[in-house]
């Protein structure tokens, strides 16, 4: 009985502590904004601290996956407490825009970013860019044998050697680009040929890069920065990035972007924040920490990485990559996503 009493006392104390924490309000003067971030804390928190220091605006951040944050925004609708949605990919921004939840950003903000990296209606703006690449193991593949187009990956010489992540948002954006550029039938045929060629399925891009580095597979289709993140975490690894030919859907450049909610309780604070993400300081930070392409203010990419100006992505309006349901249906019907 004694133990039980101690137990109930501890929990009562804990409950009180929680209550106190819940009731303690934050009455700061500089105003505050709430950010739903699909980008992880390690990549965002330092910039947010600097923003608060500079502007006096307090930032409450909710870190969740981009998909979870988008689902949350859709469920909350017009009553969302969020001011800003910072998304890992364009598709999620498109889905939230479709639901009519995004405000139009002022031209002074959208104007900071080249046209192809923002929504045509000004509802969101790209913050950093990422290129699709083929990551390969130089110990297993000669540079001269590398594919020029995503189409070459169905060749018999890559049978069982290519990794992909069909459940991943960035892969699905790439498939949507294939559908746009080469047509529905070509996309279907390619997926089927890849499945027949025994492409290896992984949970995400990181898993693919690790598998390439370990020699589990020879190459994989991923975004360019995962390689550099892994090198930063683990030192030199046995993997390199290869950029596909000009205009190839496999060379798609997509963005991580930000938007202000229509229902934002603090719209001006929200706009200041989005603008801050495009300032020199934040853009430099993203370039150094995430190895993505800075999109504003002419900040240079990490010198080891092929610069943005030299990339030759397919000519696609990113806003046109919004038929995710169609891509998902295609992945299901071809049995690529089981």
């Amino acid at each position, binding site marked *: *009985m004694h*133990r*039980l009493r101690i*137990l109930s006392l*501890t*929990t009562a104390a*804990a*409950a009180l*502590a*929680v209550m106190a*924490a*819940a009731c303690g309000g934050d009455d700061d003067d500089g105003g505050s904004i*709430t*950010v739903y971030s699909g980008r*992880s804390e*390690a990549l965002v928190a330092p910039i947010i601290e600097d923003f608060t220091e500079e502007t006096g605006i307090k930032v*409450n*951040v*909710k*870190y*969740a*996956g981009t*998909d*979870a944050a*988008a*689902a*949350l925004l*859709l*469920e*909350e609708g017009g*009553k969302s*407490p969020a001011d800003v949605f910072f998304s890992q990919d364009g*598709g999620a921004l498109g*889905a939230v825009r479709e639901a009519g939840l995004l405000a139009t950003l002022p031209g002074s903000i959208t104007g900071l970013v080249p046209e192809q990296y923002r929504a045509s209606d000004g509802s969101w703006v790209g913050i950093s860019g990422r290129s699709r690449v083929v990551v390969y193991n130089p110990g297993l593949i000669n540079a001269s044998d590398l594919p020029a187009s995503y189409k070459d990956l169905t060749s018999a010489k890559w049978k069982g050697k290519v990794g992909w992540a069909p*459940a991943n*948002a960035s892969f*699905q954006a790439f498939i949507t680009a294939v559908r746009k550029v080469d047509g529905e039938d070509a996309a279907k045929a390619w997926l089927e040929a890849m499945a027949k060629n025994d492409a290896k*399925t*992984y*949970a995400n891009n*990181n*898993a693919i*890069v*690790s*598998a390439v580095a*370990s*020699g*589990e597979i020879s190459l994989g289709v991923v975004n360019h920065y*995962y390689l550099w*993140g892994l090198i930063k*975490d683990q*030192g030199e690894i046995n993997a390199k990035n290869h950029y596909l030919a000009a205009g190839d859907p496999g060379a798609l450049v997509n963005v991580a972007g930000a938007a202000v909610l229509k229902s934002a309780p603090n719209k001006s604070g929200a706009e200041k924040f989005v603008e801050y993400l495009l300032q020199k300081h934040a853009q430099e930070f993203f370039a150094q920490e995430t190895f993505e392409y800075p999109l504003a203010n002419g900040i240079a990419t990490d010198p080891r990485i092929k610069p943005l100006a030299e990339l030759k992505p397919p000519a696609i309006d990113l806003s046109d990559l919004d038929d*995710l*349901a169609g*891509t*998902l249906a295609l992945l*299901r*019907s071809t049995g690529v*996503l*089981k």
Partner: protein
Amino acid sequence: MNWAALRPARKAPAALWLPGLLAVALTFIPVFYLALRSTEDGWSPWSRAFHTSVPQLLQRSLWLAAVVALFCVAVAVPAAWLTTRADIPARRVWSVLLTVPLAIPSYITALAVVAFLGPKGMLQGWLEPLGVDRLPEVYGFWGAAFTLTCAGYPYVYLVVRAALASADTAEEEASRSLGVSPLRTFFAITLPGLVPALAAGILLSVLYTLSDFGAVSLLNYSTFTRDIFIEYQSSFDRTGAAVLGAILGLVTLLILTSELGVRSWLARGRKRRQAAVRLVPLGRWGVLALAFLSIAVSLALVLPVGVLIYWLINGLRANADFPALAPAVRHSVEMALAGAAITVALAFPVAILSARYGGLLARAAEQAAYVTHALPGLVVALALVFFGIRYATGLYQTVWMLLLAYVILFVPNALSALRGTLVRQPANLEDAAASLGKGPLMAIATVTAPLARPGLAAAFALVFLTIMKELPATLILSPPGYQTLPGLVWSRSTDALYAGAALPALALIAVAAIPVGLLAWKGDIGALES
């Protein structure tokens, strides 16, 4: 509607049926939400689901759940018997080691399994000098089954072990003293008494498998839950996801009905053990028993913790960034303590209602709780978002919303621990108390609760660690800026910052393991004393 049928067979005091009613009401939040969302586009998403993914997903999910349950029982029952009935050395240590893997989330076990057992994983690296160039594929069905068994067998072990520890051993001893072999005694006498515990354990493991996301996604095996996540992730299709969620809920209901069938023919009101247990000498089988236990512990505990420590050391050497731990530890512990206390407080009356009074309400409360338990945390979280933002604006995005989600998700964990203990208690003790003029509530307070103490403690520890591990609902419902341990592990590992993920992961496991480890440690003393 015949309201009389809702009332229990014996008249239950309001202090019991009110919590029962509350449990049902809470459960209806996600059920109502699913009903609403899954029908908002008419029946076409349903027919589309049934014509495309559902039959296959159903088969895949159930097949995985069945195999995992079988594996879990195959590991848990011998392990539980060895640590309660056999003369193996350091029995208490083994009990603790077999129990604490409960504290390891399946996504961490899965990360470790891939890193260690992958075709070019750490194990292959060790075997390379022996000419092993590549290990067989770890992804897919067997990899997922293996991972979920490692992560899930302790649930079955705990339930079976609790049943063995509190069971009356007089018949077993009589059997053995008459010269019947321990093995035959086990099958003829011990095992039949374990049926309720086994049924509860299997049910938990099946629900665990059905609602798991971490292991199946990392090991790339498609189940209902993974597909629900993919619907959200890829097309932000809430209707499609809700249809799948609703079907998953219905399937769970079917499983529950069959579990109740099993329960109805099991022996009731077995006596509590009076005398001390006489341990079975294993003799030369002892080595085999120790080997079995060592393998079970190595796979479920040493493997994931070892990989985490390896990452941590690597990160320390490479000067990696480590996240600040203190706030995350504090938040996670606060939530887990408060959540476990509320959950157990709600589950206890429901368990008494179910074990002593029966009736439709008791059954509804129990079943409803289990149905939500099989739903992915994401769905329950979104249901609470839906209701919170409309009807509980003051609570929305506060820790209370999060606590509510934990209660809804984990009442079944508490129920299964409590119900087993209660069924095992002789109800006639309470009747005796009542005949001595004590009211039913006094009887519960003075007789039932003290006797159910082990069950209460187990339920608390179980819910505590489950909350510590919970990820999807925690991410969605915690207030902005509220960092938690699973949140940190998740964010670092999705960035492939494995060193940074290893530190909070180890902290999570250490904290979550404390109550359940203590329980396992004390458990043996209790069994020997009484």
